[in-house]
């Protein structure tokens, strides 16, 4: 059945590409989560009238985040070629996509984190302060847990965006399903390969959405 519908698909290579896509997505999601959360916290805390209120740091951080968030991903990859060559050593293969994926999505996620944190009731932060909590305690025991549903639903959206970024990165040399679909599917006119790669990407996206939504729902006790 699969042979007739997808005559040109080499299943071993399809599987290998899927693993590469999952690898690129997973690493970049984890890194984006960590970097984005830190940046988002800094954006939130340095806002005037907040705990670390500091206009200069806030403005600079905000500007950097906005710039990187606005650069189209495909252009970002090109801009980052010299940087990638230094830290990864090559422009080909699955690792080559990681710097661009992370730098492209961490600022995007940082904004979501900041918005999530701003939605926390100011009174709760004040209550923690009135109990004598240190800033680190407030971060770990108030800010992060209270905004966790927003952080998780934000990383879900970001993860989905990252899966499609990996496909784009594939076109210019990084591995994965995008690469396979472009080289074997599009360039050789084998549309069944493109179709299969698309189906797998869709399945990955749906799974991320379902998992993300169910975790968000579990966490949200409001």
């Amino acid at each position, binding site marked *: 059945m699969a042979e007739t519908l997808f005559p040109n698909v080499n299943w071993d290579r399809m599987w290998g590409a899927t693993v590469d896509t999952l690898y690129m997505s997973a690493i970049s999601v984890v890194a984006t989560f960590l970097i984005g959360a830190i940046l988002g916290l800094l954006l939130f805390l340095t806002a005037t009238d907040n705990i670390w209120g500091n206009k200069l740091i806030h403005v600079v951080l905000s500007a950097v985040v906005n710039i990187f968030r606005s650069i189209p991903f495909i252009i970002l990859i090109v801009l980052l070629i010299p940087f990638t060559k230094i830290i990864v050593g090559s422009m080909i293969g699955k690792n080559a996509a990681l710097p661009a994926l992370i730098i492209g999505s961490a600022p995007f996620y940082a904004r979501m984190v900041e918005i999530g944190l701003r939605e926390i009731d100011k009174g709760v932060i004040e209550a923690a302060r009135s109990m*004598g909590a240190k800033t680190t305690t407030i971060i770990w025991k108030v800010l992060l847990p209270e905004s966790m549903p927003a952080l998780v639903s934000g990383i879900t959206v970001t993860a989905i965006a990252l899966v499609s970024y990996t496909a784009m990165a594939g076109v210019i040399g990084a591995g994965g399903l995008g690469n396979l679909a472009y080289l074997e599917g599009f360039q050789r006119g084998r549309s069944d390969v493109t179709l299969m790669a698309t189906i797998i990407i869709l399945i990955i996206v749906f799974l991320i959405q379902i998992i993300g939504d169910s975790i968000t729902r579990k966490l949200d006790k409001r």
Partner: protein
Amino acid sequence: MITIKKARKIYPSKKGEVKAVDDVNLEVKEGEIFGVIGYSGAGKSTLIRMLNGLEIPTSGSVIVAGREVSKIKGAELRKARQEISMIFQHFNLLWSRTVADNIAFPLEIAGVPKAERDKRVKELISLVGLDGRGDAYPSQLSGGQKQRVGIARALANNPKVLLGDEATSALDPQTTDQILDLLVDINKRLGLTIVLITHEMHVIRKICHRVAVMEGGRIVETGHVLDVFKNPQQPITKRFVQQVTEPEETKETVDHLLDRYPHGRVIQLTFVGEGVEQPLITNLIRKFEITVTIVQGKISQTQNGSYGILFIHLDGEEEELDNAITFIGQHEVGVEVISNG
């Protein structure tokens, strides 16, 4: 327990500066329930927030439980805050934590070990009457129950002072009374000093020993609650006192009465403490040739005694009326002739 000297808080604003708190001096004794009442924008929240260092006075000093809260910073201030806890109008519970974990939060901050924390949380849950609800989340509780969690949380580290900023303003009247009863109970049982901010005279009347009236950042009147009820000095204080002593319809009723009885006099009697229990009306009717009609009355309980207001209509010969009024004046009762018929 609390001494505020010449405290001032000035906020810069576009239209010049806002004097949120203006030259306030205040003394609260240990074990006292002290109320601060005022309308919106009077500076009450700013004042109470100075007591735990959430607000630093522009000038003046604030000393709570032997520490100059207005001066200390960092670790010392955080330590002080564990002894000066606060409850809030909107409860400010962490929705991501259960009731038990919310109550455990200040204990975690204070570095209490887990086993001890669990034990203390159990005690507190029972103290505020929430047995069996430890695993519930705040979203599953009523407002009154949420405030009980807030109170348990505030008591966790055995504070010396409890501050309440409009702690009952988001609750219905019945729940308000339950929470107020709980506060009185805690005050008696633990000898805790309590400072409450409110715009409802009902709260002051029901649980406070002393009261300060705030207007425009200043304290315009202070005193024992009963004295303030008996003899309010400032117009704003009179208005607050009327909130609880005079039923809304009083004025209408009195007007109506003056129309109906063109003769005689309508008199407002004010009873305080002992005075409430005298058989005054009986004596009036026995001793004088007059008729007495009771128009309206209300007795309120305060922490330092009862306080009552009674409107009566007297009719009879002019001379007899004068004698009766003089007679009333000889007792511990305030008399005010509203209008001659």
